[in-house]
């Protein structure tokens, strides 16, 4: 019986195994291998160049280090602000407020609006001459700001958009808040704990698996940011260094400028950078992650 079950299990795992092998692992190996060649798809055959793509990337590429810097800056800012914002909104929406369903929808909708509409609309709001934010600044006698074309403001401005569109995090936090056992809160209330103490000592510890999940997903998603670059700094446009996110650099190198092998090099380093951040998150999480069942 056990052997039959094992056979069935293996059978059912075949599609997943094939999918992972052919869609994930083999392309990953191919990308790594390609990073040691010079190849555009229109070259007759790849030319082995050893480590020269990596040397070029680390020593000569005028975009690479800027790209790493702005990607990390954007991801850290967006993730931190997004977590605080979405947890705060989820806490508010978990209470019995009037029209709660409506407000939940209002905060979720930005997440499902097509990205092109989101970024185009925000560009109008951010417009240095005719946008609403600058109208407000001007009405207070403050100088205008070119939010999307001034190195000091580009990343914070993009992070605001990312935070605004983090409705998915709110929904997951809401689900997590619904699972915090009420008995803990009731017991703490009887013992005279304040709302803040209950939040810090009960809600947050019980929510750590959810916080960890949102943190991880949000970090990976924000490290892979590319849409604002495509919309605000796409081909043929002035490209402020703050828009050269790693995904954009990889896309532009491979699919606009046709250098697939060098794009593979960027991809592999990019993969390593994300892997490093994820590893740090996993390692540090051991000290603060709390599972109610006691499992880690």
């Amino acid at each position, binding site marked *: 019986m056990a052997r039959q079950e094992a056979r069935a299990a293996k059978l059912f795992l075949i599609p997943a195994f094939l999918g992972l092998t052919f869609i994930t692992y083999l392309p990953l190996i191919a990308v790594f291998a390609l990073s040691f060649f010079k190849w*555009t*798809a*229109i*070259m*007759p055959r790849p030319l082995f160049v050893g480590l020269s793509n990596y040397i*070029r990337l680390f020593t*000569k590429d*005028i*975009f690479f280090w800027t790209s790493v810097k702005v990607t990390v800056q954007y991801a850290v800012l967006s993730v931190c602000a997004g977590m605080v914002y979405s947890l705060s909104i989820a806490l508010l929406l978990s209470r019995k407020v009037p029209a709660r369903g409506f407000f939940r929808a209002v905060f979720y909708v930005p997440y499902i609006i097509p990205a092109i509409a989101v970024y*185009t609309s925000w*560009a*109008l709001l951010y*417009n*240095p*001459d*005719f946008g609403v934010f600058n109208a407000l600044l*001007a009405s207070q006698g403050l*100088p*205008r700001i*070119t939010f*999307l*074309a*001034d*190195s000091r403001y580009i990343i914070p401005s993009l992070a605001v958009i990312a935070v605004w569109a983090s409705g998915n995090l709110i929904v997951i936090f809401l689900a997590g808040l619904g699972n915090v056992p009420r008995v803990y809160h009731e017991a703490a209330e009887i013992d005279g704990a304040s709302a803040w103490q209950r939040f810090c000592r009960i809600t947050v510890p019980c929510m750590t698996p959810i916080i960890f999940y949102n943190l991880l997903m949000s970090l990976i998603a924000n490290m892979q940011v590319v849409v604002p670059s495509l919309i*605000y700094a796409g*081909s*043929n*446009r*002035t*490209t*402020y*260094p703050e828009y*050269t996110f790693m995904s954009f650099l990889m896309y*532009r190198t*491979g*699919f*606009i*400028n*046709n250098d*697939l092998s060098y794009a593979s090099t960027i991809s592999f380093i990019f993969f390593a950078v994300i892997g490093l951040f994820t590893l740090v998150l996993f390692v540090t999480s051991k000290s603060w992650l709390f599972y109610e069942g006691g499992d880690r």
Partner: protein
Amino acid sequence: MKKGTKLLSLALVLAMVLSMAAGLAAQAEDRVTITYSMWGDSEEVRVLEETIKKFEDEQDKIHVEVVQIDRADYVGALNTRAAGNNLPDTGIMAEDAVLMWAEQGMLADVSNMYGADEAKPLDSLAFTFNGSPVGYSVSNEVLLTFYDRKAFADAGVASPPASADQAWDWDTFVDVAKQMTLDVNGNNAKSPDFDPNNIKRYGVMFCPDFWQLEVWSVTNGGAWYDAEGNVTINTPEATEALQRIADLSLVHHVAPQYGTNTATTIDQDLVNGNTAMYIQGQWAVGVWLGNAHQSDGLDYGVGVLPYMQDKATLNTGGVNVAFATSQHPTEAMEWLKWYAKEENSWGLIESGIWMPVLSSYYTDEALTHKWVDNPNFPPYDEYKAAVVDYAMNNAQPTSWYWVNNTNLFNDALSTILAPCWSGNAKVADVIAQNIDALKAANQGN
């Protein structure tokens, strides 16, 4: 009827039907099938398929199949097809990718596409690699000054000249732009009370497409490359021109910071009174301004560009190529030659999106009238002087007609220049500091 006879009759009928079908198939197979890749939406595909039907009605040797690819992924998709040895026979190609493909031997030499006695496209529209043409632009486009006629009339200021003979020099242009720039209190940029922090209407805006900046270095007697394709952007003429563009915003306050007006288009900016003039390519007539004229009553005019030292504009246009991998190069070129004739793409010319490529439309008055007499165009005399004659006499090809890797170069240059637009660096300084990186980009690194 006996059962055997019935079966025999059935077999005979079946044989007859099969032989007829085979005959029809053989007739269809007489035509050589070639493929043509293009970017465009379903409406453009429909128009193209009608054009192809016309082509197929006129001859019985070639059948053309359309390969539609999204514009954003176009060159990438062709790369993938090349890797799979599955390129189309012919196709439109992004201007900045043509020479890269030619260098890899992927494009056919089209030197012999036109006979000696045939009407050819303008010489400035040929993409050349190693001295041989590898494609001709399927349309012509030049950079121009569009303006809001009413705004100039209301201000009592002379509008941009249509004739290159009367083109404004740079100082005159800046002076006019100052007169046309208004703050929220109605003061123009020449007024001592002008408030540069509260501008209601700019004198001029520039299309944010980065490659168009090259024209200003050209009007200043400079260039981004020499005739051999070597980088010359570090010459004083080239850098001074770019600094002057930055100064329009930083010093004179007559234009928004370069590259920031990406959320709106020329029609919106002219209709909403955000600017009095707008530097953009001729395609604006067909893509935006004709509609704005019809639906919003925009009374727009067109003039030549201002100049610094030389009266010049740039021309460009999407290029049709025959891929070297085609098994049917003769048929591929026959189709491209037919398709390049103005009467076969008249819808796009009539709408104002394309300008004709054949020189006869620029020199034969009757053909020029056929092209320009159009209610969505500015008046004939104005358009003829500012567009037709200007394109004939003052247009120089954009550098991607003869220089490879302009995409890499422009990516690097646009990033290097970014701090200059906000006044945090000077053009000459950043170019000097990064000239090695620019030269490397020019070499494909």
